[in-house]
C-alpha cells in the first residue's frame, strides 16, 4: 500500500532518487573499504615495520573518510528534498481531493479524520521516506557488501557468519512478531486515554453536575493502568533487544578471534585480515539493526498510507456534468418535482415525492418536525446532495446539468451551525463578494441586526477567531446572515438560522429582510412559527412528505400537522 501510494510521486523524482542511491552505494563502499585499508596498514605497515607504508595508507584512509562524508551529505540533501516535497505534494493532493467532496463524502470520512489524514498521516509517510532514503538502501548494501568483504578477507571464517546472521534474523523476527502487535494494542490504549480525557474536558459541566468525578477518575485510572501495563511489557521486551544483539555480535567477534586465531597460527590468515573481519562483522550487524528499526516504523506508515489512499481514491459522490449548461436567466426560481431522497443503505426515505415551486422574488418557508427532512431539502437545492429520484431545478435548469460553481454563485447560504472564518468581520462578510464596499457591508449588517455589536466591537476590522468563537452564538448567527446578504444572490437559503436569535431580534430582522432581498427568492427553514407566518408560502413537511403548501391562514384551516405545530407554540390562547 505504501509503495502503491508513493509510486506516482516518486517516479517523476527518479533523477534525484538515482543520485541518492548512487551516493548511498558510494558511501557504503567507502565504509566497507576502510577496514580493508586498515588490514593492509597492519599487515604491511605494522607487522613489516614499514613506517612509510603506514603514513601512505593513513593518508589514503583520510581521503576515503572525507569522500564518504561528502557523499553522505549530498545524499541527505537530496533525500530531504525528495521526501519532504513528496510530503508537500501528498498534502496538496489530499486537500484538493477533499475540496471536491460532497456533504455526504465529508460525513462518510468525518471531518476530524480528514484533518488527521491531511497532516499527521502525511507526516508519518514523509518521515519513513526520509529514513528509507538515507538508511534503507544502506542496510542491504552494508549487509551484502560486508559479507563479501568478510569472506574475501577470510573465506574460512564464513561458517561463523552463517551461524551468527541467521541467529540474529531469527531473534529479530521473534521480537518483531511479539512487539509489533503490542505496539498496535498500545496505540489503541493511548487512544482510549485521549478519549476519556477529551470527554472529561468537553463534558466537564455534565460530569460535575451529576457528581460523577470519582467514577470518571476510576474509569481513567483503569485506562491509565492498562496503558502502563502494556507499555511496560513492550518496553521490557524492547530492553531485551539491544543486549541480545550485542551479545550475538560480541560472541561472534570472540569466535572469529578463536577460529581465526588458529588459522592465523597456521599462517593461512593474517592478523590484519582478522581485524578487518571483525570490523566487517560489526558493520553487518549494525546494518541488521538499522533494518530492524525501520521495520518498526513501517507498519505505522502503512496504516497511514492506507488512510491517505482512501481519500485519494474516493470518487466524489457528486460531480459536475461533462458539458455544463448555463441557465437562460438567473432569477432564483426553485422547482422540486417528484423528489425522493434516501441515504444509501438506509431503509427509510428522508424525502418522498416532494413537489414544490418557489417563484422568483417569493419568500418560502419550510417547517416540520425533527427529522422531517427540512435541511435535506435545502441541501438538495444547493446540490450538496443528489436526489434519489425526481428533479431539482434552480434558475429553470436541472442542478445536475449545471456546473456547481455556477450554481453556487447564485446562492447565498446561511447554514444551521453558523461558522465564521479566522480573520476580520470584513473578511468574513466579503467571503462571497470580494468587491463589496464598506457601505455595502454596513447595510447588510444593519439588516442582520448586527451593526450595533459590530460597532461596539470596533468596526469592520475587528478580529474574528477561527470558527467565530470570540463572539456569542447569536452574534455569530447574525454575522453569518450578513455574509449571505452581502453577496446579493438570486436565491437565499436560510437553514434554521433564526432559532438562535431571541424573539425581538428575530422580529426586527424579519421586518428588515424583504426590502433588502427585493426580487431574490428566499427559502427559509425554521422551527418558530412566528418566523415564517408572513411568508408568501409555507411548505409543511411531515416525515419526508409535503403535508401542505400555502399561506398561514389557509394552512391553519386545511393542514392538521401545521395546526398542531402552531398550537404547540402558541397554545390555545384565550
Amino acid at each position, binding site marked *: 500500500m505504501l509503495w502503491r501510494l508513493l509510486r506516482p510521486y516518486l517516479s517523476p523524482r527518479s533523477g534525484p532518487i538515482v543520485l541518492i542511491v548512487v551516493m548511498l552505494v558510494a558511501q557504503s563502499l567507502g565504509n566497507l573499504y576502510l577496514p580493508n585499508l586498515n588490514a593492509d596498514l597492519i599487515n604491511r605497515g605494522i607487522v613489516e615495520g614499514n613506517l612509510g607504508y603506514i603514513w601512505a595508507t593513513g593518508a589514503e584512509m583520510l581521503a576515503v573518510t572525507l569522500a564518504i562524508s561528502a557523499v553522505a551529505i549530498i545524499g541527505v540533501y537530496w533525500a530531504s528534498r525528495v521526501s519532504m516535497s513528496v510530503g508537500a505534494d501528498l498534502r496538496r493532493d489530499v486537500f484538493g481531493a477533499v475540496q471536491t467532496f460532497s456533504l455526504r463524502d465529508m460525513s462518510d470520512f468525518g471531518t476530524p479524520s480528514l484533518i488527521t489524514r491531511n497532516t499527521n498521516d502525511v507526516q508519518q509517510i514523509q518521515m519513513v521516506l526520509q529514513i528509507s532514503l538515507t538508511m534503507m538502501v544502506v542496510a542491504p548494501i552494508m549487509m551484502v557488501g560486508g559479507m563479501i568483504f568478510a569472506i574475501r578477507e577470510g573465506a574460512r571464517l564464513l561458517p561463523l557468519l552463517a551461524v551468527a546472521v541467521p541467529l540474529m534474523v531469527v531473534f529479530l523476527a521473534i521480537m518483531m512478531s511479539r512487539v509489533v502487535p503490542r505496539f498496535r494494542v498500545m496505540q489503541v490504549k493511548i487512544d482510549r486515554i485521549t478519549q476519556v480525557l477529551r470527554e472529561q474536558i468537553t463534558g466537564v459541566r455534565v460530569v460535575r453536575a451529576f457528581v460523577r468525578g470519582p467514577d470518571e477518575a476510576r474509569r481513567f485510572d483503569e485506562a491509565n493502568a492498562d496503558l502502563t501495563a502494556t507499555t511496560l511489557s513492550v518496553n521490557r521486551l524492547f530492553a531485551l533487544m539491544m543486549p541480545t544483539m550485542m551479545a550475538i555480535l560480541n560472541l561472534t567477534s570472540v569466535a572469529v578471534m578463536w577460529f581465526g586465531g588458529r588459522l592465523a597460527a597456521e599462517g593461512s590468515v593474517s592478523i590484519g585480515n582478522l581485524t578487518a573481519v571483525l570490523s566487517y562483522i560489526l558493520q553487518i550487524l549494525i546494518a541488521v539493526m538499522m533494518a530492524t528499526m525501520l521495520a518498526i516504523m513501517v507498519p505505522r506508515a502503512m496504516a497511514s498510507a492506507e488512510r491517505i489512499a482512501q481519500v485519494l481514491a474516493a470518487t466524489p459522490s457528486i460531480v459536475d456534468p461533462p458539458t455544463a449548461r448555463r441557465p437562460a436567466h438567473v432569477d432564483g426560481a426553485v422547482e422540486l418535482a417528484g423528489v425522493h431522497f434516501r441515504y444509501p443503505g438506509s431503509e427509510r426515505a428522508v424525502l418522498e415525492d416532494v413537489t414544490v415551486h418557489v417563484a422568483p422574488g417569493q419568500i418560502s418557508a419550510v417547517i416540520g418536525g425533527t427529522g422531517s427532512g427540512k435541511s435535506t431539502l435545502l441541501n438538495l437545492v444547493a446540490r450538496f446532495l443528489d436526489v434519489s429520484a425526481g428533479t431539482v431545478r434552480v434558475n429553470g435548469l436541472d442542478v445536475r446539468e449545471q456546473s456547481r460553481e455556477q450554481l453556487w454563485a447564485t446562492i447565498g447560504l446561511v447554514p444551521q451551525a453558523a461558522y465564521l472564518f479566522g480573520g476580520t468581520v470584513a473578511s468574513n462578510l466579503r467571503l462571497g463578494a470580494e468587491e463589496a464596499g464598506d457601505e455595502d457591508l454596513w447595510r447588510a449588517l444593519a439588516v442582520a441586526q448586527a451593526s450595533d455589536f459590530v460597532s461596539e466591537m470596533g468596526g469592520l476590522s475587528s478580529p474574528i477567531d477561527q470558527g467565530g468563537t470570540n463572539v456569542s452564538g447569536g452574534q455569530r448567527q447574525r454575522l453569518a446572515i450578513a455574509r449571505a446578504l452581502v453577496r446579493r444572490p438570486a436565491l437565499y437559503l436560510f437553514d434554521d438560522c433564526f432559532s438562535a436569535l431571541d424573539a425581538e431580534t428575530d422580529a426586527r430582522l424579519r421586518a428588515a429582510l424583504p426590502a433588502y432581498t427585493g426580487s431574490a427568492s428566499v427559502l427559509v427553514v425554521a422551527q418558530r412559527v412566528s418566523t415564517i*407566518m408572513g411568508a408568501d408560502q409555507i411548505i409543511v413537511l411531515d416525515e419526508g412528505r409535503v403535508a401542505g403548501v400555502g399561506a398561514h391562514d389557509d394552512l391553519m384551516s386545511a393542514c392538521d400537522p401545521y395546526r398542531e405545530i402552531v398550537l404547540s407554540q402558541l397554545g390555545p390562547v384565550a
Partner: protein
Amino acid sequence: MTIGGGPGGAWRGGMRPGAAPGGSATDARRSLARLVGRLRPERRPLLAALVLGVAAVAANVSGPWILGRATNVLFDGIISARLPLGLTRSQAVALLRAHGRGQIAQMLSTMPLTPGVGVNLPRLGSTLALAAVAYLVGSALTYGQGYLMAGVAQRSMYRLRRDVEEKLARLPLAYFDTHPHGDVLSRVTNDIDNLTTTLQQGLSQLLTSVLTIVGVLAMMLWISPLLAAIAVVTIPVAFVLTILIARRSQVHFTTQWRRTGELNAIVEESHTGHSLVQVFGRRSATSAQFDEVNGRLYRASFRAQFLSGAIQPTMQFVSNLNFVAIAVIGGYRVASGLLSLGDVTAFIQYTRQFTMPITQIAGQMNTLQSGLASAERVFEFLDASEEAADLAPRPARPGSGALSLRAISFRYDPDVALIEDLSLEVAPGETVAIVGPTGAGKTTLVNLLVRFYEIDGGHILLDGHDYRELGRDEVRRHFAMVLQDPWLFAGSVRENIAYGRPGATEEEIVAAAQAAHVDAFVRTMPDGYDTVLGDDSANLSAGQRQLLTIARAFLTDPDVLILDEATSSVDTRTEVLIQRAMAALREGRTSFVIAHRLSTIRDAHIIVVMEHGRVVEQGDHSSLLAAGGAYHRLYAAQFAGSAAEPSV
C-alpha cells in the same frame, strides 16, 4: 466547531504558534529539575539501574581490551614462530639488528617472545573465554538496567497522567472557559505522550551513553595516554560541530511545527466550513492559501531534515578521522615497540564505541528539547490555581428543592458585573422560567445554582442551608441539568442515559427514555439500547441528542431540574409531548427553564425576566403581559410583522 482530532487522538490545536516548543533556557532548566524531582519515588530502582549500568559498562568496556590481549597472544605467537628455535629474545633482536632490520628489532624488544614456539593456544583460549564471559555479563547487566529503567519511566508517566487527571477535577470551571479545550487536551495527551517518549528513550540512552563515554575514556587513558589524548581532542570538535548544527536545525524544527500548526488551522477551517467554502466560491482562494503555507512548511521541514541529517555524516567523519589517526599513530608506536598491536586494535574498537554515544547524545538533544517544551506545558497546567477543596462528603439528605437567592452578585471579570444584586424565592415544586436577551446572564444564573462558580456576594440557600455550609458535590446531588450543548460520551445508549444514576434498572432506563420520547428511535437503531455512540455521535441529529440528555435528567430524579435551552433543536410538537412528561416529573420538583421560545415557558409559575444581570420583572405570564413591560415586548415580538393574532 469541531472539538477533537482523529481516531489517533492527536489534537492539533497544541501546535499553534503560541504552543510551539521553545521557552527560555531557564524555564527549560527549571522544567528539567522538576522532571528529575518527579523521579524521586523511583530512587531505589534508579539507583539499582545506575549500579547495573556502571557494572554493565565496565564489563562491556573491558571486552575490547581482553580481545586486544588475545590479539597480542596471537601476534606474539606468529612472530615467535618465525624466529629460529632455541634463541632467546635478546639474541633474536640482536640478530635482526645485525641484518639491518632495526625497525622490527625495536618492536620485538618489548614483546614477550619465545622464538620458535607458535601461538599459545591454551592461553588464547582462556583469554577469549574471559572476553566471552565479560560480554555476556555486560549484556545481562544491560538488560537488567533497561528492564528497571522501563519500569521507572512508565511508572513515572503513570503518576504524571494520574496527577493531570486529578488536576482536571480540581480546576475551577473558569479555567475551561478561558482555555481552549483543544489546548488543554493537547497538554494532557500530546505533551504527555511526547514526554513519555523522551523519558523512555532518553533516560536509558542518556545514562548508558554518559557511562560508556566515561568507561571508554578510562580504558583509553589506561592503555595509552597519548592515543587517548588524540581521541579526547576530537570529542570537543564532535560536540561543537553537533551543537552548531543542532542549534540551526532546531530553529527550522520550531518553524516546521509552527507551519504545521498554521496548515492545520487552514485545513481545519476549510474542512469544517466545507459547504461555505464551496457555495461562496472560495475553493481556489483556499487552495492558494493552502499551497502557500504548504510551500513554507516544505521549506522549513526540508531545512530541518537536511541539517539534522547532516549531523550523522559529520559525526561519522569525526569518528573516521579518529580511526585514521589512531591507526596511523598507533601503528607508528607499535612499530617503534612502544605499544602492543593488541592495544591498537582495542583502541580502534574503543574509538568506534566512543563516537556512538556522542552521536546518540546529539540525537537525544532534539528529543530532549522538545520533551522539555512539553514538560513545561504540562507543569504549567499542573500549576494552574485550583478550586477550594470541597467539604468532606456527608450522607445524602432528602431535600424539598426550596431555593432562596438573596442579593447575589457575581462577576467573572472584576470590571464587568454579570449578576448584580439578584434575589429570588422559589418554593418547592415551582417552575421558574428565565427569559431575556442574549448576554442577560441567564446561563450564568443557573451555573451559580449548581455551583459551577462561587458567588461573590449574597447568599444562596437550598432547603434553608447556606451553600457555604454545604459541599459542592452535596449541592449538586440535588440537581439535574440538561444543557444547551448536549454532551454524550462514547458508550452505549444505555450507559449514556444512566450516566446520572449508575445502577439504574433496565425498566427505569426504558421508562426515562419513553418519557423523553427517545425509546422509539432508540429501538430503530441497529443494537437498540446497546448501540455504541461514536466519538462525535455524528449518527444522531441535534434534536435526538438533546432528547437523550433529557432522558438522562429524567432518570436522575432530582429535587431541582435545570433545563438550559434543552429543547432548542427539538421540534415543537415533540417538545409539547416532553413537556407533558416533564410536568408529571416536575410534580413536587423545583425546575428552572431557560428558553427562547416563549411557548415553552408560558406555563411557568414564575417568569423571571433578566437584562444585564438583573431581574427586571418577575411574575406569572398573565400578570407580566398585563404589566406591559419587558416581557410584553418580548412576547409581542414573537408575532411582530404578522397579521395573525395568537388567537386560535
